[in-house]
């Protein structure tokens, strides 16, 4: 085996078109190239909706006081899709929203790259804010994606959202 032990979790099995189709149908997908925010946003056009809220999580140049050079996200694609679908279903039960869609990117990312994008539309503004934040928090807590940060002067390390 020439590839490393993480190669299966740095790329996705599906085509880009499949990814966007799944995201549109189920509200969540993983992608291994740059997220096309406008493509996601276009799926949310709805004349009934007065409010659109979106969140973009971008790779920061620092984590606490440490300077970050780049990072790599790894994902367990099939579980992520199943869990993502459940998260979006739950969001639509909890909040008065019309649609929600999110994509998490995996693979090697540079500073400034978008790692996760969440968009929500609703008739009124507060449910869109609340749902967007809840979906993001729940993605961070439950979607099987891992992150390794690379630093200038220290060895890379595995990070955790809850530790």
């Amino acid at each position, binding site marked *: 085996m020439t590839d490393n032990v993480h190669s299966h979790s740095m790329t996705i099995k599906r085509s880009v078109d499949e990814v966007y189709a799944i995201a549109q149908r189920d509200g969540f997908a993983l992608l291994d190239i740059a997220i096309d925010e406008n493509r996601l946003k276009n799926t949310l056009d709805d004349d009934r909706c007065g409010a659109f809220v979106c969140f973009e999580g971008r790779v920061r140049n620092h984590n606490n006081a440490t300077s970050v050079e780049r990072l790599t996200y790894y994902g367990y694609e099939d*579980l992520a899709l199943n*869990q993502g679908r459940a998260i979006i279903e739950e969001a639509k039960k909890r909040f008065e929203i019309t649609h929600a869609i999110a994509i998490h990117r995996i693979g090697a990312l540079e500073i400034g790259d978008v790692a*996760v994008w969440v968009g929500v539309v609703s008739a009124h503004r507060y449910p869109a804010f609340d749902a967007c934040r809840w979906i993001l928090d729940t*993605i961070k807590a*439950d979607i*099987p994606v891992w992150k390794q940060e690379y630093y200038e002067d220290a060895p890379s390390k595995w990070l955790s959202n809850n530790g």
Partner: protein
Amino acid sequence: MSAIKETERATRAATQVGAVITIKVLYFASLADAANCQQETVKVEPSTSLSELYDSLSQKHGFSHSQEELRVAVNDYFAKWSDPINDGDSVVFITPVAGG
């Protein structure tokens, strides 16, 4: 309930004749580093629990995480540690995630 008893009886019977089930274990993140592989095929007795499976693989590979820190997924869905394992299942131990 009777279905569970049926299964238990079948399981005991299979164990007695030395039957095993084959499951696939996939590794991600620090567990893949420790196991030094992406996946492996494991043969276990049908009565093996997910906890026992993790203990056994943890000893084999020297995983640093205790079971309490992990979640477990069976066939691409999160599962409970008390869920049964069946022949052909795919099992993944999920270390603390870090998306977003």
